[in-house]
């Protein structure tokens, strides 16, 4: 297990030269990693930096979808998976639709029944009636 990676940040102008990593970071205050991307996720195609490249060249969210979400809080990648689970829990506790609207699409995916790790569309994908309705 590696220690927590340093989250790269760019000053204005640098982002024009490098493709920034678009992995979501944070827990309450969400943001993009912004570090220099070295690859594209093999599944969703989003640019990812060296620190966020998971097994098989996937981004952390797609790796979690494949069942590799760490359960140990000591793992530096644990926060991402826990955030998604926790926001699901808080929406039940608070019953606040505006809180839900501030979620990342990755976090919204946890509301889709039977689709534990849908990170793309959340409840906006398709009109199948199986999305988030309890608000």
């Amino acid at each position: 297990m590696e220690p927590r990676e340093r989250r790269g940040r760019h000053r204005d102008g640098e982002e024009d030269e490098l493709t920034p990593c678009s992995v979501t970071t944070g827990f309450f205050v969400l943001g993009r990693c912004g570090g220099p991307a070295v690859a594209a996720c093999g599944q969703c195609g989003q640019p990812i930096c060296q620190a966020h490249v998971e097994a098989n060249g996937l981004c952390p969210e797609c790796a979690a979808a494949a069942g590799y979400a760490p359960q140990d809080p000591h793992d530096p990648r644990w926060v991402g998976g826990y955030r998604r689970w926790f926001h699901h829990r808080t929406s039940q506790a608070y019953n606040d639709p505006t809180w839900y609207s501030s979620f990342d699409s990755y976090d919204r995916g946890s509301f889709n029944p039977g689709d534990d790790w849908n990170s793309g569309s959340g409840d906006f994908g398709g009109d199948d009636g199986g999305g988030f309705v309890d608000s």
Partner: protein
Amino acid sequence: MFWRKQRAAIDGFHSLHQALIWQRGFSATMLPDEWGRLVHSLAGHGAVVRRRKWAPPPRATTVVVPLVQVLSADTRGDGTLSVAADLRGPNVQGKLSAQQTFPGQRRGVRKIVEWWSYDPWLSMRAELRDGSELELTIADRVRYRKIHKRSQSGKYKTKMKTKTVQRVSVTRRLPAGTALQRPPSPPPRWITVRVRDGKRPVIRASAKLMAGGQDERALPEQILHMATELFRWSPASAAGATGTARRTS
């Protein structure tokens, strides 16, 4: 000398990890990356040290590590995270009050000796990347009662009772000029919220939790539920005002 290999392994741990083993607590202010190194050190403890006496206090792994991970994720790169953890337990000198003696009211009860303990065992402060500051404190308040009785056969007996209540407080100080917005739904009833609107708004969520029989692994989730309320008061439209932050202001 016994245990010399494990003792040598402990000498190679992070200094705060060693403080958890030997002093059962620490107080430090560090950058998120340095906290990551401490968590990394704690993760490797069980692989090299098997002596239970030298294990970190259980609260270090069940409460402190998850909260450090979450707050580190929200701390800005050059911001600091401060943690003061005193995991020695409530029954140590300096945390105990003077004893009081009451006469027994019921039949067979000779006297009741009562004393209290106040144990503020965790305090954290983080400088978040949206410009706000988050503070949390957890304190155990324990009531001890020693009841002296005399049985029907004339034997003297004592019974010890303890009752623990946890006081949790989470405070968020927002950047100057932030407009507050009351959330559309109230928080769960067990959370009390106080708001001070002004040049620099302050929101505080506090709760009294019954401790003891409860599994303490649920405590980080309860604390984060309280912290959630603080982030519902700042409008999402102001997100991204500073750097990469997208939610809150």
